[in-house]
């Protein structure tokens, strides 16, 4: 898969067409974003291929701005006829939309960057091998992944899901302020879920990991860890309701930070949907809590030279030593909040105009070895599995009650597996109650966290 000049040309064509369609009336500004994707997905089950899909697709998303009014449309038909027709339609209907003085198609003054013919700066977010490796090798890799888990222990009864997926993505952007350029990204990853059985006990264990480079993809590690997680849960039992300290695994930590970051979006703050409003400069977390969004992290899973509207990405410390420093901004929110874009316009692909989102988000590791975090706890809960987190955390109030599984901690040691409990609390209170932060920063795709502990949570349980 390669750079295709015709895709940059169709993006430019869409922008010119919008300007032309508006000729005679108020000036039209426009932006076009083209994605070209190639992807392979292989599902295996019981040491054989279950399903294999190959994907090649491109599409365009266009924003037009006229008289302070913005409209968005997209299509996967990249013929001039289809794109032109869509753009004409957008220019026609945008007049009915609500005017908003902060609507903007970014220019240089907003931080937008143009690239030279070779594309934007290479930040190590692309590996040509991902597309070049023959499909048969990917199939073998997926089979090796599942086998590593099936062979991990005689207690592994089978796999419920074993998926390998990769993707190569070329992004092209052009707008009417003279900004255009392109960049590319790649990724390969896998998700696996095993059943472990022993006596009456049946447990599940899963593991997911994604990396940018083919060489960094370790199928055996993923298979083994998924199986290890299932076997470790055998014999799990509930505990009784109680209040106790909690240690959180890096994987679950990353999922919590994603919620916190969503509330740190300037869009949420400005629309009155976040309790972080008016808290910049205030202490919102424990002293050892530093949360960073880094769009330029070398080799990061979501690293890109520019964001979804062509603005340069950056490293943004959000919370430093417990103090809230800034929100995440795109150009619209930056204008509205009299701030500068932090390069966080995020879009899910050509089909979405996008909004404010994170890039590579992580909790800065501390100096405590993970074992030492457990050592200080006489009786506590080690949280390693959550169910339905999106429905268990209230994104407005921050209240949560999370159906969970994990391990009991007794006298500084991980003892027996626990299932059938809920962890109750409030996200804002949890940030302030963070006790120890481990040194073991671990990445799960674009999210990173070390192990950390919280002084106290409310466990709800069926146990006696």
């Amino acid at each position: 898969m390669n750079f295709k000049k015709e895709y940059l040309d169709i993006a430019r064509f869409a922008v010119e067409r919008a300007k032309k369609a508006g000729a005679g009336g108020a000036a039209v500004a426009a932006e076009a974003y083209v994605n070209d994707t190639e992807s392979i997905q292989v599902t295996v089950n019981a040491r054989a291929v279950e399903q294999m899909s190959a994907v090649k697709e491109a599409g365009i998303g266009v924003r037009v701005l006229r008289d302070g009014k913005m409209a968005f449309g997209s299509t996967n038909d990249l013929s001039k006829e289809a794109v032109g027709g869509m753009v004409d339609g957008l220019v026609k209907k945008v007049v009915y939309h609500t005017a908003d003085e902060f609507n903007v198609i970014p220019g240089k003054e907003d931080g937008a960057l143009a690239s030279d013919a070779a594309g934007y700066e290479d930040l190590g977010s692309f590996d040509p091998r991902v597309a070049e490796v023959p499909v048969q090798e990917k199939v073998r890799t997926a089979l090796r992944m599942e086998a590593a888990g099936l062979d991990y222990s005689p207690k592994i009864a089978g796999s419920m899901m074993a998926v390998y997926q990769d993707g190569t993505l070329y992004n092209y952007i052009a707008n009417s302020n003279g900004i255009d350029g392109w960049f590319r990204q790649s990724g390969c990853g896998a998700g696996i879920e095993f059943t472990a059985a022993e006596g009456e006990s049946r447990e599940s264990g899963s593991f997911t990991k994604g990396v940018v480079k083919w060489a960094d993809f370790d199928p055996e590690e993923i298979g083994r860890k998924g199986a290890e997680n299932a076997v470790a849960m055998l014999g799990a039992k509930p505990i009784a309701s109680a209040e106790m300290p909690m240690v959180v695994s890096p994987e679950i930590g990353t999922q919590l930070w994603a919620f916190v970051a969503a509330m740190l979006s300037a869009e949420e703050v400005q629309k009155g949907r976040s309790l972080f409003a008016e808290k910049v400069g205030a202490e919102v977390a424990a002293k050892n809590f530093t949360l960073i969004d880094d769009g330029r992290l070398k080799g990061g899973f979501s690293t890109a030279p520019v964001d979804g509207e062509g603005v340069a990405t950056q490293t943004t410390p959000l919370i430093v030593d417990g103090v809230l420093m800034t929100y995440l901004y795109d150009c619209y929110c930056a204008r509205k909040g009299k701030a500068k874009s932090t390069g966080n316009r995020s879009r899910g692909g050509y089909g979405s105009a996008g909004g404010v989102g994170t890039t590579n988000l992580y909790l800065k590791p501390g100096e405590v070895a993970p074992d030492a975090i457990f050592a200080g706890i006489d009786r506590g809960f080690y949280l390693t599995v959550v169910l339905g987190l999106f429905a268990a955390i209230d994104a407005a109030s921050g209240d949560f009650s999370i159906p969970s599984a994990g391990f009991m901690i007794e006298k500084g040691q991980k003892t027996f597996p626990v299932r059938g409990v809920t962890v109750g609390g409030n996200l804002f209170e949890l940030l302030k109650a963070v006790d120890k932060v481990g040194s073991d920063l671990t990445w799960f795709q674009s999210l990173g966290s070390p192990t950390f502990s919280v002084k106290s949570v409310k466990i709800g349980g069926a146990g006696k």
Partner: protein
Amino acid sequence: MSKKKSMSRRSFIGKGAAGLSSVAFSSALMEMLLSSTGCKSGPGGAAAGASDLILPEDVLAKAVSHLMGRGADFGDVYVERAAVDSVMSDDRKINTTTTIEKGVGLRAVKGGRTFYAYTDSFEPERVYETARYVADAAEDPASSTGPAVITLAPLTSGLSFPIKPLPSEIGVDQKIELFKALMDRAWSADARIVQAIQFMREIIRQVNIATSSGKIVRQTLGLTEIMAQTYIKGADGQLQAAWDQRGAYAGRDFFTGENAFEKVVDAAAAKAVKLLEAVDSPRGVFPVVFGPGMNGVLFHESCGHGMEADLVFKGSNYKDQLGKQTAAKGVTLIDDGTIESFPGSYAFDDEGTPSERTVLIEDGIQRNYLCDIIYGEKLKMKSTGNGRRQSFRHPPIPRMRNTFIDKGTTPAADIVAGTKRGIYVADVSGGGQVDVITGNFMMGVGEGYLIENGKITKPIKGATVSGMGIEAMKSIDMVGDDLKLFPSAGRCGKMQTAPVGFGMPTIRVRGILVGGKGEAWTDIEGGSK
């Protein structure tokens, strides 16, 4: 969330706007699409058997021949055109979006293995090329002959859901006028409202399916989804949000009475207001009464997924349960793809099998699973018409349709009255998730109340319910006589999204784990009268 390649487990819809992220297109394009599909003729009669094929019959036949040319056991071609128009009011600003998409998905199955690819082109040569690519991937070296000759015969169905009015019959300006009224209504519901979102999405999908068994199916579906979300801030600084939604394979005329847009907007505001007065949910194991309707999503999670043939085949907690007791006596679970205009209804599934009403659990006994062609065959069962796909980009997999618990015999009013201490869940709008290996499921509670001495009292917040599927189903001790079906805008997300509907009468579960940050209840005998 910005997880590029999330490999999540089977999960249900997210909360609020995130769960209905806006896809979007212009009415001009919608117009184009509809006029080219034959939907424009007649009074909004888009239905199965609509006259035109997207690709000519000989092209479909040739594409299937190419798919089968290398010894595949089964093959199908799925041609789709879709147009999505959405309108959204957010932060008192109304905007629309537009999306138009087309493509051809090609599948070959050999020895139970599925090979799949798609192209965004309708050029016959590109379609054949993709078909050959798939055929090669599925190749059986022992039997590579030339393309087989496939003859196709069209299937028809009496099932059709009219789209009235067609989205294209209403101008952008009229849609925006409608939204202005909804927006004003939402913001004026309470002085403490700090934000309100109203969202509507109209999707027209035209589909042609041609299979190696000689079937050809034409189907046009028009899905309308609406959603409202309201944020409210109390004097004490607490922020609460609530939402409501509806969806149906129908035009806007469907949304009247309790499904009216106005009702959805009002409900979101009313729920948010109540949350300001709510107490933290108690935690522990005690009786939970679930109100009728939307709460049926509980059974979608707690047992429906475990009965999908692919997951049964791989060893879900429902494997080898046919003929055995998997729920309390008096509990009947149905998955029905024929309820008029409901979001999980269709004449044919996405591999051309006619839809049907499937009884999964009958009076507590497991009777059936949800099968597509491929996994049905692996289980030596017939397809129940549950092979669904999100779009031409995805191969079909077994999915639910409209899943509900059938009506019972207990007068609904007696259920709360017979519960001394517990909670009443009016709306599990928080969504949920299941782990089909252990059967462990969870649901967030959107609107709930304490039950004290047989009466519904204070509203609660921050509750989740969770449990083990079969164990929870056996713990149902009262099934009400007030069955209500709910046309939901919910999308089930099992690797791909699919519109699904729910329903249930009032039901009591004798003891189930409730999470919250309120007091710990240890009185598990609380359910007695």
